C-alpha cells in the first residue's frame, strides 16, 4: 500500500556506506521469565539491607515508603503518560503536580515552586544560575559544610558561564557557619550565598537569619538547601530570609534505589521578576475558556527551552514528575500531625544513636551539635574507613568516612538514623561498632 517491497526499502534513503552491515554485538532476545530470573540471580549476592539496618545519609536517607505511595505510582495513567502538553486530557497529572507545588510552598514558606528538578544537587546548580540572572553578578559564595557532591554540581553548572564559586570555611569547632569568615567573602559582586540548614554534618545553622541578612545587605540572594523532613521541626526558610529553597525530596516517599531517581525541590519568592527567571515546568490554576470549570495547565512556558531555545532559563525538559506525585501523596498521608511526629521520631532515633555511640570508649559522638538526622562521629583510636567497610559483615551499613571530602575530619564518619530505626536496631549498630573497636 505504501509502495515498498520489503522492510529494507524503508532505508533506501540512507547511503549504503553508513549502514551497519553486521548484527549488533549484544545477546539474542530472551523471554520475560528468563530476564527476570537472570536479574534476580545477578542481584542475589548484593547486600540489600533492610531499611532499619542502614545508617547512611548525607543526601538520601532510609525512610519508610508507605504502601499507599507505591500504589498511587502504579497507576499506568500516571506512569505511562508524558509531560501534560494537552491540558484537557491531562488534568490528573496537572492537578497532582499543582498540589505538589502547593505543598512545597506550604513547607518552605515560598511563593512559587516548580514541578521538579532532577535532584537536590542540580536544583542547587540551577538556583545559583537563577541568582546570577536576577542580580547580574558573577560570584557565588557557598559554605564548605554543604554536601560535597552538591558543591561539585554547583561548580559544574556555574563555571562555564564564567561564574566564580567561592567556598567559605566553616567553624571547625562547631561544624556550622563561621560568620566572620563568611562576611569577608561577601561583597557587591556576589549573586548569592548558598548554605544548607541542617548542613551536611546534620547541624542546625543557628545563624541562618544572619546569613540571609548578610546576603541581602550586599544585594545578594540567599539560597538555602535542605532535607525537607527537617521542616517538620525547623521554621519555613522564608521566615528567616531565604529567597530560593532547594532540597532533596527523596525522603518524602521515594525508595533509595542506589541513588536515583531522586527529585530536586525548587521554590522561590520575590514576585513576577523572580518567577520569570525560574527553571523548569510550572503548573498553574486557570479556568476553562467558557469559565465553567477550574482546571490546570503548564504556565509561563515562554521561559522554557521549547519556546525560548538558547535564551531559556534552563535546558530542562523531562523532569521527575512521577516522583513529585509520590512526594505529595506521602505528605498527605502523614498530614500535619504525622509530619510533626516524623520530625520528632527522626530526632529521637538519631539522638539515641549518637548518644549510645558516644558512650563507647575513644569515640566522640555527636561531635557537632545541635543536630537533626545526620551526625558526625569521631573515632580517636580507629580508622573510620575500616569500620565502614566492615559493618556490612554484621548486615549493617553506616558511617561514611569524611576524610576524602574533609581532610580535617579524617578520623570521623557521618551516621544517620530515622523513624525506621527502633532501639534494638540502634543497639545492634552500637554493638557491632564496639566489636570493631576492640
Amino acid at each position, binding site marked *: 500500500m505504501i509502495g515498498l517491497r520489503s522492510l529494507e526499502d524503508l532505508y533506501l534513503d540512507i547511503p549504503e556506506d553508513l549502514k551497519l552491515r553486521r548484527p549488533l554485538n549484544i545477546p539474542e532476545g530472551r523471554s520475560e521469565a528468563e530476564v527476570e530470573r537472570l536479574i534476580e540471580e545477578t542481584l542475589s549476592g548484593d547486600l540489600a539491607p533492610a531499611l532499619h539496618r542502614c545508617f547512611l545519609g548525607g543526601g*538520601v536517607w532510609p525512610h519508610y515508603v508507605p504502601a*499507599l505511595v507505591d500504589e498511587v505510582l502504579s497507576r499506568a495513567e*500516571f506512569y505511562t503518560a508524558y509531560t501534560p502538553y494537552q491540558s484537557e486530557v491531562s488534568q490528573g497529572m496537572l492537578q497532582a503536580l499543582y498540589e505538589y507545588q502547593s505543598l512545597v510552598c506550604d513547607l518552605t514558606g515560598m511563593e512559587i515552586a516548580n514541578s521538579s528538578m532532577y535532584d537536590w544537587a542540580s536544583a542547587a546548580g540551577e538556583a545559583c544560575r537563577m541568582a546570577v540572572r536576577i542580580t547580574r553578578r558573577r560570584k557565588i559564595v557557598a559554605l564548605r559544610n554543604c554536601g560535597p557532591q552538591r558543591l561539585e554540581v554547583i561548580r559544574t553548572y556555574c563555571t562555564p558561564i564564567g561564574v566564580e564559586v567561592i567556598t567559605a570555611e566553616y567553624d571547625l569547632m562547631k561544624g556550622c557557619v563561621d560568620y566572620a569568615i563568611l562576611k569577608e567573602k561577601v561583597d557587591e559582586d556576589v549573586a548569592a550565598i548558598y548554605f544548607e540548614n541542617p548542613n551536611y554534618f546534620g547541624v542546625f545553622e543557628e545563624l541562618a537569619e544572619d546569613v540571609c541578612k548578610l546576603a541581602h545587605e550586599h544585594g545578594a540572594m540567599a539560597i538555602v538547601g535542605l532535607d525537607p523532613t527537617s521542616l517538620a521541626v525547623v521554621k519555613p526558610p522564608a521566615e528567616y530570609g531565604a529567597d530560593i529553597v532547594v532540597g532533596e525530596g527523596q525522603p518524602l516517599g521515594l525508595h533509595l534505589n542506589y541513588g536515583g531517581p531522586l527529585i530536586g525541590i525548587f521554590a522561590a519568592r520575590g514576585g513576577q521578576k523572580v518567577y520569570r527567571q525560574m527553571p523548569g515546568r510550572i503548573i498553574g490554576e486557570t479556568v*476553562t475558556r467558557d469559565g465553567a470549570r477550574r482546571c490546570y495547565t503548564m504556565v509561563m512556558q515562554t521561559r522554557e527551552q521549547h519556546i*525560548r531555545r538558547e535564551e531559556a532559563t534552563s535546558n530542562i525538559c523531562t523532569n521527575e514528575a512521577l516522583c513529585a506525585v509520590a512526594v505529595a501523596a506521602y505528605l498527605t498521608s502523614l498530614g500535619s500531625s504525622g509530619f510533626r511526629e516524623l520530625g520528632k521520631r527522626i530526632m529521637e532515633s538519631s539522638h539515641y544513636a549518637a548518644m549510645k555511640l558516644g558512650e563507647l570508649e575513644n569515640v566522640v559522638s555527636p561531635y557537632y551539635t545541635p543536630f537533626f538526622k545526620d551526625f558526625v562521629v569521631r573515632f580517636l583510636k580507629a580508622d573510620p574507613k575500616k569500620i565502614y567497610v566492615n559493618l556490612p559483615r554484621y548486615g549493617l551499613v553506616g558511617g561514611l568516612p569524611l576524610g576524602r571530602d574533609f581532610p580535617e575530619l579524617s578520623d570521623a564518619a557521618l551516621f544517620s538514623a530515622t523513624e525506621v530505626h527502633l532501639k534494638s536496631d540502634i543497639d545492634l549498630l552500637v554493638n557491632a561498632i564496639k566489636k570493631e573497636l576492640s
Partner: protein
Amino acid sequence: MVFRQASWDEPLLIELSRKGRCGLTLPSDPELSKQVGDVLETVPKNLRRYDIRLPEVAQPQIIRHYTRLSQMNYAVDLGTYPLGSCTMKYNPKIIKRVISNARFKTIHPEEPEEYVQGLLKMLFELGTMLAEIVGLPKFSLQPAAGAQGEFTGALMIRAWLKDRGQLGTRNEILIPDTAHGTNPASAAMAGFKVVKIPSTKDGVVDIEAVKAVAGRSTAGMMMTVPNTLGLFEKNVKEVIGIIHEAGGLTYYDGANLNALLGRVRPGDIGFDIAHLNLHKTFGTPHGGGGPGAGPIFATEELGDYLPTPVLEFDGCRYRWNYDRPKSVGRVRSYFGNIGVLVGAYVYCLLLGRDGLRDTSALATLAANYLMSRLDRRYFDIQGLSNTPCKHEFVASSKASALDLAKLLLEHGVHPPTIYFPITIREAIMIEPTESESLEELDHYAKALNEAAKVAYEDPRAAADAPHSTAVARVDEVRASHPRTLKVRW
C-alpha cells in the same frame, strides 16, 4: 469509537482536609523515646517551627483522590500517543515488575561497592550494550535526562577545547533550525554561542550554510538524525567532515535513535559524543514527565572528559573511578537514575539484537503507513517526495494545528506534537512508534482526516473542541497572565 474521559469535579487535597484525620501511623518505640527525652528542645529556639499546615486526609480518601485524578489522565496504556520526537512506545510490564521488586530498592548509594557488585555488573553491561548500539566505546550513565546529557556533552566539548588552549577562540556551536529546543538551551548553558543552521527546502541541513560558518570559532555541531522532520540527514557524513576539518567536535542527539536501532551507528558515521533517551528508545515509562535517563557516550579520546565517577571493570570487580582530572565533574549526585537504567537493561535483554533491529523497521513502517493515509486536501507533507520518512514525519496543517489537536482528543487518541519544528507553518509532528497495531493506525488516520476536515471547513465549531475530555478547552492565556497567575493553593 465513542470516547468520554472521566470528568470528576475533584477537590484539591487541601480542600479534602479535615482536622485530625491521618493516613499513616509511624513506627514508635517508647523505650527509645524515654531515653532521649524531649529532643525537640534541642532545636535552636530561633529556628523552631510551631505551625505545620498539611492536608489531613485518611487513606481511603487519598486513594480515591489519586485514582480519580488518574482517570483524568491520558496515557500510552490507554491509546495511541504519537507525540513526535517523544517516542511514546509501550513499556513492557516486566520492566515495572523488575524495578518494583528488585533488591536495589533499599540500597543506599554510599554502600561500599564491594557489596553491590551484582548491580554494578548490570549497569556496566547496560553501558556496554548501549555503547555497542551507539558505536562509541566510552560511557557515563550519570545524566538524569536527555537535556542533561546534552549539557554534559557540551561541557565535554568545552573541556576538550580548554585542554587544547582553544576555549577562548572556539565558542560557537552550530545547531540546525529544526533541532529540539534543548539543543540550543544546553549549548548556551555550557557557555557557547549558538549559530543557527538553516535547512534546505528538502528539510535537511544546508551544507553550504555549514561551510559558510564553520571555521576557527567553531567548537562543534549538534545534530539529530533522523532530524525532527523524520528525514535521514543524507549529507551527515559530509557535514561531520566539515566540522572536523574546521577543528570542532560533533554531537549526536539520540532523541530519534528509534529509527536507526541496529542499522546505523552514530559513532560509525563519525560523531564524537552522543546521548540516548532511555525513556524514549529503550522502553522505560515516561512517568508523566519523568524520571528519564540520558546516558552519554564518547570516543576513546574523549572518554577522559566524561562526568565523574565512571564505572570500570578490571576483569574481576566493578568499581567507580573518581580519579579523573580531565573530567567535566559531576552533573548530579550519585550515579544516575538507577531505576530507569535497570529498566532499559531489561528492555535490551528482552529484545536482543534482532528485536532491537526489528523495532526500528516497524516504527519506520508505522510512520510511513500513517503518512500515506493522510488526506492531502488538508495536509502538506514536509520533506522529500518518493523517499520514505523515518520513525516520524511532519505535516503542515491547512487549518489551525491547535484546533486540529483539540478535535483529535474527541477520538480517544492523543494529538501529535504541534507547532514544532518551528520552521513549519501549523506543524504537526507524528511519531506512532512500533507499538501501534494496523487497526490503531487506521483509526488514527481516520481521526486525523476527520478532525482536519472539521477544522478546515468549520473553524468556529473547531474552536469549541474538545467536549469529551475531563474539561473543555483550557484558558491558557489567563493561566500565564501576570494578573491571574496562580501557581499554588
